[in-house]
């Protein structure tokens, strides 16, 4: 509603650019700040690698969230789905199933959860919030059952290598996150279904009347989100060398925060993969930087909230009414 008025700002001045990219500015400001505080550490190869490693799994899950949010929905179950997928893969491998089939089954489970979400939302017309809240609840329960409430470990070394191995001294998950992000970005931008997702996010009714199979497209979005979350969860298990029912649960909230931060990056205010990655970077840089400065964990938590507010506020100044 206010969007209509956003455009009322003056010409393309530097100031406007700054406002526009408030979130980007916030990211740069954070980087500059931490660099100024610890020039010897913050931008070193090791630390940058560290940050990338730390955010790579969040980046994957936030990518899944982006797809769903482009369509104008939410997926609260991404974190739970990722935990379940990790747990399934781990428990299968522990019962002797070889790595590849175990991973495939786990991916299948993620896909299935996404499919159920999609069916409930696109075909039974449940609101995305309730539907994914409910599946989230059930999926966590299933993950507890799969792990029997324990942490599964002793996974095959080749599996762990997926999450802990390196190529050119950069951890594998970083590459995987980059590849998945590029695929999702291209899918959103260049494929027909990607265009349909954007259209549905703009107006379900117009899309329907333009011949878009809205239900199928939404179903697909949730299914993909489930699948991609599962990838994230399997990688997390490989990265930690273990799997539990709750590990990675906070990725849900962080993924939503990242997408929201990213939405402020572009003019139209729509979820977009580039923006999401900026959001992920903010979250990663912040937590790494605060750790490096040795800030108390509780204070960190307070600061995290404040920085999210600051970043989004900065961008939203442009959308101020009139």
């Amino acid at each position, binding site marked *: 509603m206010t969007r209509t008025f956003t455009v009322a700002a003056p010409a393309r001045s530097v100031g406007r650019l700054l406002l526009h990219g408030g979130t980007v500015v916030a990211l740069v400001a954070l980087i500059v700040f931490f660099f100024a505080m610890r020039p010897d550490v913050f931008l070193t190869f*090791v630390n940058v690698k560290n940050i990338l490693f730390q955010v790579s799994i969040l980046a994957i899950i936030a990518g899944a969230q982006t797809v769903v949010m482009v369509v104008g929905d939410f997926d609260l179950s991404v974190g739970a789905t990722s935990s379940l997928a990790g747990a399934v893969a781990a428990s299968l491998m522990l019962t002797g199933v070889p790595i590849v089939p175990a991973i495939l089954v786990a991916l299948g489970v993620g896909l299935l959860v996404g499919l159920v979400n999609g069916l409930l939302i696109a075909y039974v017309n449940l609101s995305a919030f309730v539907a994914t809240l409910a599946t989230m609840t059930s999926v966590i329960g299933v993950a507890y059952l799969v792990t029997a*409430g*324990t*942490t599964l*470990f*002793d996974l095959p070394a080749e599996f762990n290598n997926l999450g*802990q191995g390196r190529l050119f001294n950069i951890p594998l998950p970083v590459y995987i996150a980059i590849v998945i992000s590029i695929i999702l970005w291209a899918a959103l931008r260049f494929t027909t279904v990607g265009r349909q997702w954007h259209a549905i996010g703009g107006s379900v009714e117009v899309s329907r009347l333009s011949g878009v199979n809205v239900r199928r497209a939404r179903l697909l979005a949730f299914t993909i989100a489930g699948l991609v979350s599962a990838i994230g969860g399997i990688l997390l298990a490989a990265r930690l060398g273990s799997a539990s029912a709750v590990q990675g649960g*906070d990725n849900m909230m962080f993924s939503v925060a990242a997408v929201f931060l990213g939405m402020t990056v572009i003019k139209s205010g729509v979820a977009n993969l580039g923006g999401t990655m900026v959001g992920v970077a903010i979250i990663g840089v912040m937590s790494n930087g605060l*750790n490096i400065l040795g800030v108390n964990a509780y204070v960190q938590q307070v600061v995290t909230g404040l920085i999210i507010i600051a970043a989004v506020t900065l961008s939203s100044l442009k959308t101020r009414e009139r």
Partner: protein
Amino acid sequence: GCSGSGGGGDAAKPFKVIAFTSGNQTPVGAWWVKAVTQKADELGWDLTMIQGDFDFQKMNPAVESAIGQGADAILDGYTDVASIGSIVTAAKDADIPIFAMDSATKESDAFAINITANQQQIADSTVNALDKAVGGLKGKSVMVIGHDPHPGIRERASLAEKAFTAAGATIAGGDIQKVKSPATGRTEALALVADYLTAHPNGLDAVWVGWDDAALGAAKALTEAGSSAKVTGVDATSEAIAQIEAGGNFLATVEQPWPSILDSLVGHMTAFHKDGTLPKTKFEAVDTTLVDASNAATITPSDKLK
């Protein structure tokens, strides 16, 4: 089913016991629920078991209403005295004693008895192990990772910190590092250690962690950074034991003797059933076993208790 009292006699009605635990989603909690049920069966108790999965808003009213329906004794497993104030009040009003294990770190009026692991001894044994492994703590840099919401961890972390400081070690980061959520303990600890090591390359000689799950994250971070610093945890989970046996950064963990604690608690309750005697002390701290490479193979992991 269980047939009342074996010897007949005057046992008109069975011993009525309410048992509750907040931690039934953890492996130890699950063992406790099973073990208590089994014991009750053997002893012919009339048992009401209430499981709270850390949701006191749900658990406390359930326990209180069971109290309202009458009972002879209450058995608390692993539930912090701080969180059950309303249960304690209700039990006092109804004049029912609470027999507890691992429910407070100090003597408390809330319980007829509370048996727990000796936190001081846990801290001492782990600190000692680290001291030996790094060849003396003096001038060494040690990170202490704790988790405040858990009273046991909080207690032993602060005891460990004192011990380290007394031994002349520096506490990395100046203070106990705090993990916020047990669910993400491993990832949080991993990031804490990894980030600290980037800020202070080779800056750690030892990491003391309050429980195994987070200790495993810390150990991983050390391994990945190529550090030779040693880690200790507490709980003796099978994963930790496996790591200790593998001989990496994970140096030692601590076994807390839950089965024997439960046995002695049940002993106190049986005594109370027989003639109403209450335990002489309200607090009992039981010694623990340090698990390191030398004895790891002989220990039953806490998540594999039968």
